[in-house]
């Protein structure tokens, strides 16, 4: 019995009128945890009740504390009939279980009802008393911290400050490896009882179940982490698979780590003491288990890394293939050992996307795997073996791809699914890489950073060097001499899923590159459908890849970062969307132009056309070079080495598609063999494609966009950030659909969405849209019918709809002019108000002469988090009777940091799931009105929970799921939203820690 949960209900406000006769409400509250329920007294006839209840105490196992949410129900007392529920609040207790996170949950929470939305607010106080538990067979994992950050984020703005940490304000002491878990259950929506219960009861059962399942999942993952000797999960990624009849799967992946508070230097951390040094040397030889033997020149390039120990440990590593018998010295729990274990472990995968400088030794390229499965009912939820086996299979595939690329690890790893009826596509992707454990350990050292940093800048090209050599490469590769150091081989293009490494040298700015594709598929059932999909997938992958490549070349760039390929399955179409941020890496060779060639020489008309086209292409490339400011320095000793044998355009992109367990043979993606990139135009289709390439509109001036966290090539940010969510759904007409038609429609849809976004934020120019995150779904009719099974009406038009969920973090860019006045403004100010607040402090012209708003975008909203400021804002408004409890401003961003701010405390992970349903769709303003309201409510609830934990921002915010279903004939709609992020306390850089 290791825990006591205490809750106190203080007051309510803005309650809805429940009694029409008196226009008032007789409200009381039920507080439930597990199977125990307490009630407050009825506070009669008030819309702002003051309960001031006693402390309700629950004595519970910490296992339950982790799994169960605290459930608060507000009801209207009725003497004669059943009490009416006003709404509920679910509070996740987890943040209180870690000693370093929040200590109390206290604040106003919106009272939420799945039918009516937010109905008033309730003030609650929650505390937990934990008793220590030394039982080693325990089932709970209290205290394991979860972070949804994908990366270690050193402040991207202060490039001069060393010592990265994962996540900020913690230091990474050890990485233990990949953790994964999944739990399955029956979906309450598909249980027989759902036919007789009310929609509200059904929704609440579902919300509660998912909350329970994700609690259980976190606990189980936590247990694994404890077993591995870690204390935290970084890059925690949790997903729901709504498999319909066959059940509900909640799965998560993450990276187990040991985090330390800086300042408390643990004995295991590497230090300058000589004794430690020796230990490290002993353990070193054993690390590179999976590193393939580098070429003869390889040891040379490692030289600069050995800065902290005079003896180059790399020499040992180069011959490590034979050193496998070395056993790591366990006990020195230093990073190296952990990393060694990690590499030997089943899956050397990392779910984060940014790393300390030099940690990534080499990047091999993107590895991805997909598999098409037929769903069947999960008969035994306690042993979800099939689902586990499916993922296991995919991960093995990823691992072998990485190996083939000469890499021992996969970074920036993620998994996803797309489900339509019984067909499910499982996907996994990551970036194959060779890691340097010694450097990682050095990265943890706080001193001597300057010195190392210099060397890193020298090594800006190392990660681009291929981890395999020409002759042993797993596929025909086109390699060139490195343009920075001239000593090693680099690929001609590099595709990765990670953030641009900090040490990388780029020319000009980056930009968002998207490949969009839509393919029709015959409607089919079961096997047939699965076969159709798996036949289609390789072609889609190929085409997406071609598009990415073409667009990259047109922009005169040579590398993609943050690549995310999403394949969404619909009833009669499959949609593919690949987004990435293109950059020009100085180390890689300059991309040749794009040449087009006709199939039928001699046809003068066509030749004329082609030469026109060619001119257009050349102009576009030249224009883009200028637009993105790409002018790399010419390397003096230009590729003086021997010509590379058998050059071939073969990207570092591995793919494989399998249906059940049958592997589809690898595609040969090789293009032409000439130096310039050749596009063959043989029919009108190709012409059409070419046109769409050229018409891809660039962002209007002053706007930059990328899907990574930081825009390459832009280094001055203001802290004004704004986060948006946009959802669009289109219905395809009944017209004869062709591949080309839907393709174009989908392409236009994406372009329109971007245009719309630029328009919305026009007042923030110059600004950058970072972490643009598109997700496409093709909701099917079937699902809608299933959901509304109480109604008999079938869904009317036999058409598909797209819906695009789209989240973007908006960053304003600005250049700080020294002491430009007004920095000390205390007023709450948001970036978007700039339109109304013309520059009061002096404006500063940015380089490009675009309207500069940098200096007036100040960041002070965060300060409401500090009590001092809250008091001030109170006194300012004290003339107004209601203003005594001003609402804390909570920033939300998909980024893992906010420029010019410092995280002083991580309060815990926010993971919330909401369902909203309506049977008065028209009255709520149609589907748009309904969803607009719901998203607004979700934001409000996230903010309230963060504020109650004492936080003022949500980082790494994601809306992972947004499932929308409607039946306009019945005037009904339902929507499910899942959001997550890290609750934190931020302060401005200039402020001291409280």
């Amino acid at each position, binding site marked *: 019995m290791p825990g006591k949960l205490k809750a106190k209900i203080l007051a309510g406000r803005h309650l809805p009128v429940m009694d029409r006769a008196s226009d008032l409400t007789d409200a009381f509250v039920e507080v439930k945890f597990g199977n125990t329920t307490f009630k407050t007294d009825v506070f009669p006839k008030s819309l702002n009740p003051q309960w001031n209840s006693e402390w309700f105490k629950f004595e519970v196992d910490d296992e339950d504390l982790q799994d169960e949410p605290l459930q608060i129900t507000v009801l209207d007392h009725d003497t004669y009939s059943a009490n009416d529920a006003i709404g509920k609040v679910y509070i996740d207790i987890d943040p209180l279980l870690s000693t370093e996170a929040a200590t109390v949950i206290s604040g*106003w929470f919106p009272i939420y009802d799945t039918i009516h939305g*937010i109905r008033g*607010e309730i003030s609650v106080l929650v505390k937990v008393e934990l008793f220590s538990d030394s039982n080693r067979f325990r089932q709970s994992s209290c205290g394991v911290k979860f972070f949804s950050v994908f990366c270690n984020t050193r402040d991207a703005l202060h490039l001069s400050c060393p010592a990265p940490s994962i996540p900020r304000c913690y230091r990474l002491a050890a990485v233990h490896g990949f953790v994964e878990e999944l739990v399955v259950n029956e979906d309450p929506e598909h249980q027989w009882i759902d036919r007789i219960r009310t929609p509200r009861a059904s929704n609440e059962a579902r919300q509660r179940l998912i909350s329970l399942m994700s609690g259980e999942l976190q606990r189980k993952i936590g247990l694994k982490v404890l077993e591995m000797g870690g204390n935290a999960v970084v890059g925690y990624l949790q997903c729901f698979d709504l498999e319909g009849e066959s059940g509900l799967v909640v799965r998560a992946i993450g990276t187990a780590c040991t985090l330390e508070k800086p300042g408390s230097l643990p004995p295991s951390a590497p230090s300058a003491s000589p004794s430690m040094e020796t230990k490290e040397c002993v353990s070193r030889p054993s690390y590179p288990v999976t590193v393939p033997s580098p070429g003869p020149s390889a040891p040379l390039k490692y030289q600069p890394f050995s800065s902290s120990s005079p003896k180059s440990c790399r020499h040992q590593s180069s011959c490590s293939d034979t050193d496998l018998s070395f056993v790591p010295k366990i006990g020195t729990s230093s990073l190296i050992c952990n990393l060694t274990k990690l590499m030997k472990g089943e899956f050397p995968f990392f779910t984060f996307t940014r790393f300390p400088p030099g940690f990534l030794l080499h990047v091999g390229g993107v590895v991805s795997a997909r598999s098409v499965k037929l769903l069947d009912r999960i008969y035994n939820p306690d042993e979800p073996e099939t689902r586990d086996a499916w993922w296991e299979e995919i991960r093995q595939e990823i691992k072998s791809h990485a190996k083939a690329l000469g890499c021992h690890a996969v970074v920036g790893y993620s998994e996803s699914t797309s489900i339509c009826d019984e067909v499910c596509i499982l996907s996994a992707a990551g970036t194959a890489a060779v890691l340097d454990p010694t450097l990682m350990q050095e990265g943890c050292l706080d001193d001597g950073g300057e010195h190392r940093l210099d060397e890193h800048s020298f090594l800006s090209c190392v990660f681009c060097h291929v981890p395999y050599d020409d002759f042993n490469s797993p596929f025909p590769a086109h390699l060139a001499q490195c343009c920075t150091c001239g000593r090693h081989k680099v690929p001609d293009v590099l595709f990765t899923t990670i953030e641009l490494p900090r040490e990388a040298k780029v020319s000009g700015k980056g930009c968002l590159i998207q490949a969009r594709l839509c393919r029709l598929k015959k409607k089919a059932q079961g096997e047939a459908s699965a076969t159709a999909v798996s036949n289609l997938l390789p072609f889609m992958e190929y085409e997406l890849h071609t598009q990415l490549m073409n667009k990259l070349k047109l922009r005169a760039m040579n590398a993609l970062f943050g690549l995310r390929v999403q394949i969404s399955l619909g009833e009669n179409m499959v949609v593919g969307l690949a987004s990435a941020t293109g950059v020009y890496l100085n180390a890689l060779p300059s991309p040749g132009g794009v040449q087009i060639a006709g199939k039928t020489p001699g046809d003068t008309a066509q030749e004329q056309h082609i030469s026109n086209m060619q001119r257009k292409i050349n102009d576009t490339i030249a224009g883009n070079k200028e637009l993105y400011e790409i002018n790399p320095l010419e390397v003096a000793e230009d590729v003086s080495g021997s010509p590379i044998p058998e050059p071939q355009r073969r990207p570092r992109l591995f793919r494989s598609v399998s249906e059940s367990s049958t592997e589809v043979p690898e595609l040969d993606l090789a293009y032409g063999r000439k130096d310039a990139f050749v596009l063959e135009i043989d029919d009108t289709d190709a012409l059409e494609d070419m046109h769409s390439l050229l018409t891809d*509109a660039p962002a*209007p001036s002053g706007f930059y966009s990328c899907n990574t966290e930081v825009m390459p090539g832009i280094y001055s940010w203001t802290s004004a950030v*704004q*986060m*948006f*969510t*946009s*959802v*669009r*759904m*289109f*219905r*395809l*007409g009944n*017209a004869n659909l062709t591949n080309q038609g*839907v393709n174009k429609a989908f392409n236009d*849809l994406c372009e*329109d969405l971007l*245009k*719309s*976004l*630029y*328009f*919305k934020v*026009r007042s923030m120019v110059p600004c950058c849209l970072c972490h643009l995150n598109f997700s496409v779904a093709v909701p099917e009719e079937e699902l809608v019918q299933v959901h509304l099974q109480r109604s008999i009406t079938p869904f009317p038009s036999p058409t598909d*709809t797209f*819906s695009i969920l789209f989240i973007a973090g908006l960053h304003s860019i600005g250049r700080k002019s020294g002491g430009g006045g007004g920095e000390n403004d205390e*007023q*709450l*100010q*948001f970036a*978007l108000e700039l*339109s*109304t607040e013309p520059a009061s402090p002096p404006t500063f012209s940015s380089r490009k002469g675009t309207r500069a708003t940098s200096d007036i975008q100040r960041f002070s909203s965060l300060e409401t988090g500090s009590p001092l400021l809250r008091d001030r804002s109170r006194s300012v*408004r004290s*003339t107004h*009777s*209601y*203003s005594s*409890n*001003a*609402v804390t*401003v909570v*920033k939300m961003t998909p980024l893992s940091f906010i420029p010019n701010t410092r995280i002083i405390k991580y309060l815990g992970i926010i993971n919330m799931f909401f369902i909203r349903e309506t049977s008065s769709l028209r009255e709520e*303003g149609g*589907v*748009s*009105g309904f*969803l*607009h*309201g719901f*998203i*607004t*409510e979700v*934001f*409000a609830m996230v*903010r309230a929970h963060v504020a109650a934990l004492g936080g003022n921002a949500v980082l790494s915010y994601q809306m992972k799921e947004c499932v929308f279903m409607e039946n306009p004939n019945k005037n009904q709609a339902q929507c499910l939203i899942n959001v997550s992020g890290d609750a934190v306390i931020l302060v401005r850089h200039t402020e001291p820690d409280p």
Partner: protein
Amino acid sequence: MEIMSVELDVFVGNTTIMDEEVYQFWLDGYTVSDAVKVRMEGGVLEECEASAEVLQSDTMDQYRTFQMCERLLHTPAKLANQLLFQIPPHRQAMLIERYYAFDSAFVREVLGKKLSKGTKKDLDDVSLKTGITLKSCRRQFDNFKRVFKVVEELKGPLVENIQTHFLLSDKLARDYAAIVFFANNRFETGKRKLQYLSFQDFAFCAGQLISNWTVGAVDNMVEDMDVDLDKEFLQDLKDLKILITDKDLLDQHKSLVCTALRGKTKVYSEMEANFKNLSRGLINIAAKLTNTKDVRDLFIDLVEKFIEPCRSDRWTAADMKLFLIHYTNSAHILDTFKHQVTWDRYMGVIKSCILKMYHD
């Protein structure tokens, strides 16, 4: 061929996104398509390379946001501590101020009318007459009514009450005080002869009346103190009749004023000839104010009995000012006139009202 149609289009920011220009269109009762038309003409498209669809979608988004906010704007104090929308305080202030702003053409139509369902039914006529959309008329009317209902029963100064409950600026709160005051006392403002007066003229007069003639002017902790006129004072006003009923007093008063004005004004002779009529006019108004009906006619009476005769004699504003000062002050010198306090309280207001109202 359009093979796709937008089914759903939503754009939501963590910090609520609002465009002031679109807010104004919404307040003015424009439909989405009208607002889009006007925005397009405004050239916002060329500025950002956007298409008409983009504008349409943006306008829709904003309209939805405003509709959701509207409920909160009805009780502005809630806006500050609600959790649904994250809106910075100065933006909240803007939203409220604009929501409660009204068109002077509109307010002139309903000023002094009972804020009842009947009046609301006639709003389509008002809309036709003023060219303000019916939607906007309804919002403005409902605002008046809402403010009226809330402050009607409250103790304390009217303007302050309005400010506390509706978080309006000082200027706007004063205007609302005037509207509430006029609606409560049902002052006649619609007669043809009063058409030349603007809302601001009346608002000024209302301010004068509120701060001098109401219960609150003497005791500031009673109910309705600022909305109702001080009954005792109105009763006392009957005593002023002596100035016109006592022939000696009337003659004395006239000669004092005439002495003071001789040589100082071009309309001296007209003034001298008309003095008794003018004085009778003003004092009869005072004496009748115990009747609710005559209170309602205060402004029309002032115009008919005093302003019009002076205007036909071509008095300038300066003449008027000079006359009223001496007319008021001379009464103090009259030995047998004992009601100096009532006189000052009455004339102070009448003087400033007439001066405000005396224009073309």
